[in-house]
């Protein structure tokens, strides 16, 4: 090995000033890096990398994004997966009501949600947590048990309280997101753009309901179990490292259907509808039943109402 003193290897030709030379080299390296990146990526990956924020996409760009995602998912899961971006309808503000005097804690909702919304099976993600509490203690989430197991429910002396995203009118999770990857849509649903989320999990610490969940590992779903009807802001398969949450089944409710948890509930404890429609089921509940919202003192104004239907 021969050592070359620095002076013997001039960095530039005598005609260039040192600044010009540095600038040229920087441009060259930048060009090389860009070329290498472009060469290393498939066109789809390149598009995904340069995709803009969901709300900034124009019609053509959005169509291209949806087509790209649909193609990617279809290849990955070996069946036709559609990705919609159905917007919120005007005059609609979604609300939810859950009858605590009916719920028996059977957890049918938890697993119907997992199947409908393509949550990761391993590592396990559930958007709904069912809390078991003692009737004598009343609603006391500090001493609730989410891990109860029994041959039959309801267990004597206990009642059950499913908790999921409360779709707050003043959502603290949206406030803290440093990159605006999560927001409240016009129909009141708080959604996440998984392509924009940086996985900082600030929203998870801001949410008082434990309703946001992080993909710590690469999500796994068997091909046969993937729900192929997806929404960009809802149940499309997520990558590792992003936060996800209940969207009231945005892919269903924006097409007029009930959320999956409403339809599966064997005791009919779950009610859903348009808060702006005076004839809707949720409005009837709010106007006629004893209703409360969870952690009212925090000022989050949930659009998820617990009630006693007895």
């Amino acid at each position, binding site marked *: 090995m021969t050592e070359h003193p620095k002076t013997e290897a001039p960095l530039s030709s005598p005609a260039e000033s040192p600044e010009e030379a540095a600038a040229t080299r920087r441009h060259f390296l930048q060009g090389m890096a860009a070329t290498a990146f472009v060469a290393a990526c498939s066109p789809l990956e390149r598009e995904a990398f340069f995709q803009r924020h969901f709300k900034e996409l124009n019609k053509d760009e959005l169509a291209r994004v949806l087509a790209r995602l649909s193609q990617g998912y279809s290849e990955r899961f070996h069946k036709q997966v559609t990705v919609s971006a159905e917007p919120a309808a005007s005059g609609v503000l979604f609300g939810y009501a859950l009858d605590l005097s009916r719920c028996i804690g059977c957890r049918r909702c938890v697993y119907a949600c997992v199947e409908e919304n393509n949550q990761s099976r391993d590592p396990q993600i559930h958007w709904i947590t069912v809390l078991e509490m003692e009737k004598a203690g009343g609603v006391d989430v500090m001493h609730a048990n989410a891990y109860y*197991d029994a041959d039959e429910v309801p267990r004597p002396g206990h009642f059950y309280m499913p908790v999921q995203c409360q779709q707050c009118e003043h959502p603290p999770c949206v406030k803290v997101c440093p990159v605006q990857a999560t927001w409240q849509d016009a129909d009141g649903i708080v959604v996440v753009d998984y392509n924009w989320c940086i996985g900082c999990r600030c929203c998870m610490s801001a949410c008082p309901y434990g309703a946001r969940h992080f993909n710590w590992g690469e999500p796994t779903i068997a091909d046969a179990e993937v729900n192929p009807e997806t929404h960009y802001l809802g149940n499309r398969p997520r990558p590792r490292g992003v936060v996800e949450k209940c969207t009231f089944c945005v892919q269903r409710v924006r097409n007029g259907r009930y959320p999956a948890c409403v339809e599966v509930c064997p005791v009919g404890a779950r009610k859903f509808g348009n808060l702006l429609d005076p004839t809707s089921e949720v409005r009837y509940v709010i106007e006629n039943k004893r209703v409360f919202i969870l952690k009212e003192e925090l000022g989050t104004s949930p659009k998820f109402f617990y009630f006693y239907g007895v």
Partner: protein
Amino acid sequence: MHRLSVLVAFGLFVWVSACGGNHERAAYLRTAPGVAPSGAREDAADAKDFPVPPPPFSEGVFPCSQCHADMTPDLEVRDLGEHDGIELHHGPRDRWCFDCHNPDNRDMLRLASGRLVPFSESYRLCGQCHGDKYRDWRMGVHGKRSGEWNGKKQYLLCAHCHNPHAPRFKPLAPLPPPKRPDEIL
């Protein structure tokens, strides 16, 4: 000065009117409890039909007339030979078949008024005693609904969830509990 204040007031009015959208959005919070339920709403609910699936008969029992047509009704309270699978756990102990079933035409149910209703409208019969539940059921609040939140809904008969002879809802086996955080990854 007076004219100025009128102008300001007018400006305010225009501005408030323009904010109508926000008012509409907050309307569900403003509505006072107990104001809305009126006779008009219940009449409207009566007018709409309740699409229900066929009644949950045990296999082969309906139409009842296939056996009962040639039998003379026996109004005595007694042990039933053919229907001994039925144990009544519904209300007071002196509840008996003909409180609900109709002795002269077994294919129909009979209201307290004497009016006959088909099994597919059994909710009218149940509603005689359980009026509060009937009212909630018609509004879509008691019982399970599927279909569209803003359109056609599928109702269920009371009997689809509650066995009319023993109506208490039966306990279910719960699905597995979630994994604890230390079991994930």
